[in-house]
């Protein structure tokens, strides 16, 4: 798994560099959209946030045994 994480890190860094130097997107006027690499941050942090919310909701409130409704 460490190898996969390393490869992903390298690809993402390459993409970020490509975005930095090659892409000249129009300014959108939305501050976070104009940051280079916002999509990477959104993917990583957004994924963690959603997973955290889902697991917390499930563990402390919503998970039940499978025969709960029987």
């Amino acid at each position, binding site marked *: *798994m460490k190898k*996969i*994480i390393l490869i*992903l*890190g390298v*690809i*993402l860094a390459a*993409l*970020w560099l*490509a*975005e930095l130097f*090659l*892409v000249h*997107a129009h300014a*959108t006027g*939305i501050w*976070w*959209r104009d940051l280079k*690499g*916002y*999509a*990477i*941050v*959104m*993917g*990583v942090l*957004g*994924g*963690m*946030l*959603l*997973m955290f*919310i*889902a*697991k917390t*909701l*499930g563990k402390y*409130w*919503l*998970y*039940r*045994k*499978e025969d*709960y*409704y029987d």
Partner: protein
Amino acid sequence: MIEMHPSLPFFLAAALAFFLNPRLRSIVQLAVPLISFWMIQRLLAAGDQTVLLHFPAYTFTLLRLDSLALLFCYAFLIFGFLAHLYAIHAHEKETHIFANLYVGSSLGAVLAGDLVTLFIFWELMALTSAILIWNRQRKTSLPALFRYLLVHLTGGLFFFSGLLMKLFAGGGLLFQTLPLDTAGWMIFAGFAINAALVPVHSWLPDAYPEGTAHGSVYLSAFTTKVAVYAFARGFAGEEILIWLGAVAAVYGVIWALMENDMRRLLSYHIVCQIGYMVCGIGIGSDLGINAGTAHAIGNILFKGLLFMATGAILFRTGKTKLSDLGGFAHADRWILFFFMTGALAISGAPLLNGYVSKSLLLKAAEHAHLAWLEATLLLVAVGTFLSIALKLAYFAFWGEGSGGKNPERRLPLNMYLAMGATALTCFAIGVYPDLMYRFLPFPEHAHVYSADHVIHSVELLLGTVLTFALIVKHLHAKAVITLDLDWFYRKGARLFERAFCFPVNAGQVSIQQRWTEWIANADQRLKRWFKDQAIAPASNPLMMIMIACLLVGMLLLF
């Protein structure tokens, strides 16, 4: 003119499915969508795109073929064909009969030109789809059918009340943009229940996973998309739809992340993706409506493909729970490939159709200056990829368990062919968006494959993979269920029954007992009194007095 209606072949095929042998039935099943398609071409060529049915009291607009209806018709016919192909091996007649009725009534609903016709097909859809839910005939099937009908008939009542209000107010019943007055709100509520918008969504993840492998494929495509069509026709541009859509998208994705049953997880993603569509329709601009409807068409295909692939796993292993599965990648590489195509399409990976419609929607949100909506939709895209392409795929195809390694049954060729054709359609629209653009309600020439947009999409998806790789060792598929709002009518109703219905019932019984005792006492006393007075006892003295009271009462009244 009624013989020109494109849903007629489906109703006839439903009748034929009763009598024909399996081979002939298969030919009819595959021919029906093609015949219906040919009828639409004839209608378009004839130039007369309305079919009226006259009655003395009311004229039904059975058919109105404009660009919006045509787009949904084509999508329903293409998917109707693919779903029929997926299901032709099935032995049980009910599937073929009710699937044809269901597809036919969905077509009827999108072609309906007035609210009464729409309502009739709307209810027909609810009834026929209910049989597809029950058709697996497990212990849980019948209660699931009743719950499904309970919710949908309630939705139908809202719709019908709105319709009657409009009728009595003297307004026309043509199905066009509807104002949000009292009648409008009632109809809106009816649509919202069918579209499974939060908080009236829980019927969907409750019912859809109950179907057979092929039954659920039909279910995934039609009811909710007809409701999206109805919103696009009746309530485009209503701001409340943006809010409801955003809530549904976030809610669906979080509940999907918690889910253990594959098809229930995918059902939550129907709720989530309907949120996307409804957001586009709520934005209301040409681009927004195009994006909403394009996503509906895309969703019919890739969600159908995902239900087909998970249905294939169910068919081969008899299992749908991630905690029971694992290692299925070793058993069937083709299903893995088709599943991943659907999963990448729904996540918005470039070269697949989900990328095109999601890009249109993000553009629509940007043009409407709704930065918060754009951020929300991106976050939901992350959750979609995380829950389907990573979590579901990891636990079903690899994972800790080994329940999927040695499946018992082989998959019929037609199921592979159906999945292959659906995957190919997703790919074709993704590579060549003009295939779909030309049928959208408004002219569309958006260039979705700009360098920055492609890079952002890939970054978003790979960032999510990085997250999953970091946390995967802490994730386990647990054999649990997740509560949702259906708790209120599954468990809550029982509590209500205990707290309210039982005491009221007990009270009523005790009042009844006292009343009976009182009458018996009065009767006996009267009889004794008659005896004491030496009057010949009547057969029922109490009755005599009551009749006398009644007669006096009538005399006084007149």
